[in-house]
């Protein structure tokens, strides 16, 4: 239904979309997730041309909407949009908000617009507010009206730009319930959201946006349970990462430990775990590996902490000759390290100029 080819959007200082290629089918309910500033909103705002792409093309059906000759207003009438800040028309009451576009743009009769509008209001549970004004409604109510207003135009697809981000936690549920109903009815929806549980429940497809495009695209199970790519994983697991590169045998050990301690504190890593991490690093990294390295070396240390699973892991990457740390002759260090770890794994690698990779899961 919607084909997006090589979509690129540049601003003066930043390019949120570098090269987006996706195909959206009728009936898709797509959750769009990802860290801030990765172009999630930009993507859907390009789809209804509220943002003009720098290059690339978007086809809605057979029409190329990025073409200058295209009558974008007509296309937009077939797309609905629900905004983070609701954007209801303040000078009209609720029912007028809903009746306005169908009457003005579709030529609906006042009676029909009224009847259909009231029906929609009933669907979202706000029929009794028909004659109130937007400033008399709560955020959740306003957003439900906004959804009804979009539905009044009988669109083929509805775009949601962080529909619950501006709401009190108490009102998020009512809006999500309405959107769920729409999904059940088989409408095509694209929802940019930070609510992971909601994104997972409602969608049949999830876009994880990162690095200027759709970084990973899959079913909710694929993305949430089995993310394949590194950044997706990190995002899904809410992973916290701390990395350090050591290039001298006289590196600042005390400073390292202090930073590691801080990283741990920041992310509410239990104190014992922090000690164990320091211990594992000292025993494996300093006592076992460091002596084996050349004078000119690279030793990368990375810690990943998952707040969800409360697990801390350490990755050591080093260059030089192949050396399996597990076969170190430093028995005392090994013993201490093993004691503090769930597992210690070693592989040879060719990533980024390193030759050895050690992954430790810390207790």
């Amino acid at each position, binding site marked *: 239904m919607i084909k997006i080819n090589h979509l690129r959007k540049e601003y003066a200082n930043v390019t949120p979309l570098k090269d987006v290629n996706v195909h959206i089918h009728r009936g898709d309910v797509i959750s769009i997730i990802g860290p801030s500033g990765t172009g999630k909103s930009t993507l859907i705002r390009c789809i209804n041309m509220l943002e003009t792409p720098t290059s690339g093309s978007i086809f809605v059906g057979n029409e190329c909407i990025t073409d200058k000759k295209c009558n974008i207003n007509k296309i937009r009438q077939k797309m609905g949009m629900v905004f983070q800040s609701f954007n209801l028309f303040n000078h009209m009451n609720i029912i007028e908000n809903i009746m306005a576009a169908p009457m003005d743009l579709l030529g609906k009769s006042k009676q029909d617009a009224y009847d259909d509008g009231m029906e929609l209001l009933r669907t979202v549970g706000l029929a009794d507010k028909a004659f109130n004004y937007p400033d008399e409604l709560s955020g959740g109510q306003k957003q439900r009206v906004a959804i009804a207003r979009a539905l009044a135009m009988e669109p083929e697809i509805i775009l949601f730009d962080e529909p619950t981000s501006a709401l009190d936690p108490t009102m998020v549920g009512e809006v999500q319930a309405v959107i769920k109903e729409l999904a059940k009815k088989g409408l095509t929806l694209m929802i940019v959201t930070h609510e992971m549980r909601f994104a997972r429940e409602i969608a049949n497809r999830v876009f994880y946006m990162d690095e200027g495009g759709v970084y990973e695209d899959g079913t909710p199970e694929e993305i949430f349970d089995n993310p394949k790519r590194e950044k997706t994983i990190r995002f899904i697991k809410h992973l916290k990462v701390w990395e350090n590169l050591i290039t001298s045998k006289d590196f600042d050990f*005390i400073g390292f430990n202090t930073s590691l301690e801080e990283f741990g504190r920041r992310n509410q890593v239990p104190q014992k775990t922090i*000690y164990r991490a*320091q*211990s594992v690093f000292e025993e494996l990294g300093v*006592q076992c590996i460091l002596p084996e390295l050349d004078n000119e070396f690279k030793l990368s240390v990375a810690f990943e902490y998952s707040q969800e699973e409360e697990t801390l892991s350490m990755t050591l990457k080093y260059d030089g000759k192949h050396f399996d740390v597990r076969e170190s002759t430093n028995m005392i*260090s090994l*013993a*201490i390290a093993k*004691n503090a770890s769930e597992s210690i794994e070693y592989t040879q690698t060719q990533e980024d100029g390193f030759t050895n990779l050690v992954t430790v899961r810390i207790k």
Partner: protein
Amino acid sequence: MTIEKNLNGAELNVKVIGRLDTTTAPQLEAEFKGNINGVEKLVLDFAELEYLSSAGLRVILAAQKVMNKQGEMIIKNVNDTINEIFEVTGFIDILTIE
């Protein structure tokens, strides 16, 4: 790391406070080298020892070897983590822990 010494006749009480790791172990080593002569009983108090690595262990082992000739060495107030380290490294058999 802070070291508190207390010489009581031929008994030397040494309290180690803080971390005993690669950077601080030499400090303890120097301490022992200077003051261990003529001591018949060396008591190491680990009540406020937060962290112990293999570097520290080696210094303790050296001290143990010396005291074996002069008298005895006792380590007291060891917490679980440190005890675990003594266990997995087999030091628990070599050291006298109270």
